[in-house]
């Protein structure tokens, strides 16, 4: 590692954490120097988030020591103490109060923003941070955060972590911030971390996107099964090495069946082009259609409209068939937190399973068990509470719910956000198989790499489709070009 332990800003030694019988962390050591960016990589369930929660003070460790700036922190270590020491966390599960505006959320962590005019000062503080990190963000700091799309919420949360009043920032923990940011915002954030490091701020950066890590981190720590299994300077590691250390089989590239078939099924979704747009949206049975572009340019609006119009025509939108939807914003739009994996799976198809409004427990259990096995959901049985699963597995349950609903059209609202590489590949295969069985997919994604799985891609800019790209012609440059409103090179 980096030698001179005395200079470490944060020093974790032998951190242990158990959840019931499950050991989430089995003695983890971690050192973070001021002005450096440490990246932590690993599968879902490797213990990254648990470790960060302990460092950020939201979870108490069962064993081990934490030292910040050379001083040991005792049993009373919590969020308050961490805040006072200048440790800020940006979590995967967003921690803003949705009913409060960005300025009010800023006040929440800064007690110095008090007295007359605090609102104005808070607005200036968060506005400046947003402008510095995400120029051109277009966020009104007076709007309730809950009304913002998830990408903008993530921006507010991230920017808030870098705001300073009398409390200075010494370490910012970014737990998968880029999962809900589009390519531009991700680039802006990574660029800003370099600047922050120049000011002596340390950064912990967690991401499943390995190129981001290798391109920007100073050091990389690889975790597996609650332990650190490897580390090194980012410049000396390759993607393949990281993947190997994480324990992922270096499988062949995703099954590239996309766009291979000429057969075309009946039209499931037809949205006439707006007068100012050149492209109409059509989705046929058996097709996987990607929706690309920067976040907030009309992709979600289309998904919402299709969901509302299920089974009939509404205005210029015709939807033939039933619709099921999977959202990547699982806490707000997905899971039923009090329920088991089984009930969370079957809630999408209770009406189909029921006879005269009543469910047969055996039949329901059979359906839930079938999908648990088919999607390889890592839970001992369908009675397991959904909240005891890792994030990626919770997301699989939501996909299982949509598949079990047996709908003609499945809407994906960036559903694989924050899911590890291996799980993603598995799910891609399932999507392809379901499409071959005649289902239609409308798939909004913030990760351009995911578009590889689509037969066709529509690129959105300011609410209209600016390009339609067939699988064979798909290229990152063309998607990015159209995302900024460029005319496609080949007309029609």
């Amino acid at each position, binding site marked *: 590692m980096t030698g001179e332990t005395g200079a470490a800003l944060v020093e974790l030694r032998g951190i242990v954490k158990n959840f019931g019988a499950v050991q989430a962390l089995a003695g983890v050591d971690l050192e973070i120097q001021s002005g450096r960016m440490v990246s932590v990589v690993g599968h879902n369930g490797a213990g990254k988030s648990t470790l960060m929660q302990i460092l950020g003070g939201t979870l108490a460790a069962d064993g081990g020591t934490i030292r910040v700036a050379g001083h040991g922190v005792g049993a009373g270590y919590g969020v308050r103490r961490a805040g006072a020491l200048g440790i800020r966390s940006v979590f995967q599960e967003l921690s803003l109060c949705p009913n409060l505006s960005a300025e009010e959320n800023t006040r929440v962590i800064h007690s110095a923003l008090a007295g007359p005019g605090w609102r104005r000062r808070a607005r200036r503080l968060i506005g400046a941070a947003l402008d510095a990190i995400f120029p051109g963000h277009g966020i009104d700091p007076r709007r309730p955060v809950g009304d913002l799309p998830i990408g903008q919420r993530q921006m507010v949360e991230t920017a808030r972590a870098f705001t300073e009043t009398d409390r200075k920032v010494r370490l910012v923990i970014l737990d998968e911030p880029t999962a809900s940011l589009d390519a531009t915002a991700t680039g802006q954030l990574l660029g800003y971390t370099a600047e922050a490091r120049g000011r002596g701020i340390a950064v912990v950066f967690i991401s499943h996107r390995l190129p981001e890590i290798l391109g920007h981190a100073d050091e990389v720590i690889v975790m597996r099964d609650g332990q650190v299994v490897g580390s090194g300077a980012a410049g000396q590691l390759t993607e393949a090495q990281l993947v190997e250390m994480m324990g992922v089989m270096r499988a062949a590239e995703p099954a590239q069946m996309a766009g291979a078939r000429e057969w075309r099924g009946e039209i499931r979704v037809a949205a006439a082009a707006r007068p100012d747009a050149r492209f109409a949206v059509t989705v046929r049975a058996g097709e996987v259609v990607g929706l690309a572009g920067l976040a907030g340019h009309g992709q979600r609006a289309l998904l919402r409209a299709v*969901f509302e119009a299920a089974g009939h025509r509404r205005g210029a939108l015709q939807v033939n068939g*039933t*619709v*099921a*939807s999977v*959202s990547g914003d699982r806490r*707000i*739009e*997905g*899971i*039923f*937190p*009090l*329920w088991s994996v089984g*009930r969370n799976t079957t*809630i*999408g198809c*209770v*009406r189909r399973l*029921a006879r005269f*409004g*009543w*469910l047969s*427990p055996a039949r329901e259990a059979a359906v839930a068990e079938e999908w648990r096995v088919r999607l390889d959901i890592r839970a001992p049985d369908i009675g397991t509470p959904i909240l005891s699963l890792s994030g990626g597995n919770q997301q699989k349950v939501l996909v299982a*719910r949509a598949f079990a*609903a047996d*709908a003609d059209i499945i809407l994906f609202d960036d559903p694989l956000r924050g899911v590890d590489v291996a799980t993603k590949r598995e799910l891609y295969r399932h999507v392809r198989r379901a499409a071959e069985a005649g289902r239609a997919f409308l798939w909004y994604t913030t990760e351009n790499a995911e578009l590889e799985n689509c037969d066709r891609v529509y690129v959105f800019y300011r609410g209209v489709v600016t390009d339609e790209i067939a699988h064979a012609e798909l290229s990152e440059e063309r998607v990015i070009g159209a995302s900024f409103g460029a005319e496609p090179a080949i007309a029609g």
Partner: protein
Amino acid sequence: MTGNVRAWLDARPWVWSFGAALIVWLVTALAVQGRGMLETLAVALQFATFYAIVGIGQMLTIAAGPGNIDLSIPGVMTFAGYVAIGMMNGGNAGLAAGIAAGVVIGLAAGAFNVGLIQGLRIPPMIGTLAAGFVFQSMAIAYSRTSHAAPAPLLVSFSVARVLGLPVIALIFIVLTVLVSVALSRSVFGRSVLAIGQNARAARLAGLAVRRTLGFVYLASAVLAAVAGILLSAYSGGAALDMGTDYLLMSIAVVVLGGTSIAGGQASPAGLWGAAILLDLVVTMLNVMRVGAGLRYVVTGLIIIGVLALAKGREQAT
């Protein structure tokens, strides 16, 4: 071992109210040297029935999630009670018409609530409270013209006993079991609990959110009407203040019974434990000759005690 006990208790949130009721019952029995112990229980069950009937409806609304509550229950009870008894007018001939009229009032009141909540988008807490005032006022207007007695058949039904147990209690215990099964095994029940946990996710999962919520408020109002009719029969006639207690009691039996005030989870069995507990506490304090002032203090402390025990369980997990 303690883990097992805790898990067992977690799955049965109604245990606390029944446990507390049992203790209060035993204390009462001690105070009177065991005389009339069973009769005390039978009488408690009789009164508990009225709490439990409205409690079922209130439980469904509360389980349907944050913001959902029915505060029109006292108004509906009183109005339905008055009209039903008025139509009976002391004779058995008007029995069917009276009950039908009472139930129709329940349905109409429920529909009115749904209109306020879904049509005018008024928050349920305000909408149902206002609607309750309207129904109470209608009962007042109606009471000027009617001082009827209930149908004798209904009166004997409301006090009838089988094997020493009140018949109406047995009937509504059966209904409670049905509701309990429906909550875990029917599309409607699953929908209510899903909406209570996460209304947005419920909509995206394709559930009929509006229809389910509408049905919940209809059910609550109809149950309140039925409770009003039976209570009027049991007390020999409707009275304008007969619903007053039920505003808070309907909520108290739901929460004491182990239903989460946050929604998404319901504990139908607990309604009975809580209703019996609340009635037995009054009996116990009467038997012990506790003064009126102290009586409220003790009742309050018992409620806090039960909730604290149950909450301690939640935090421990």
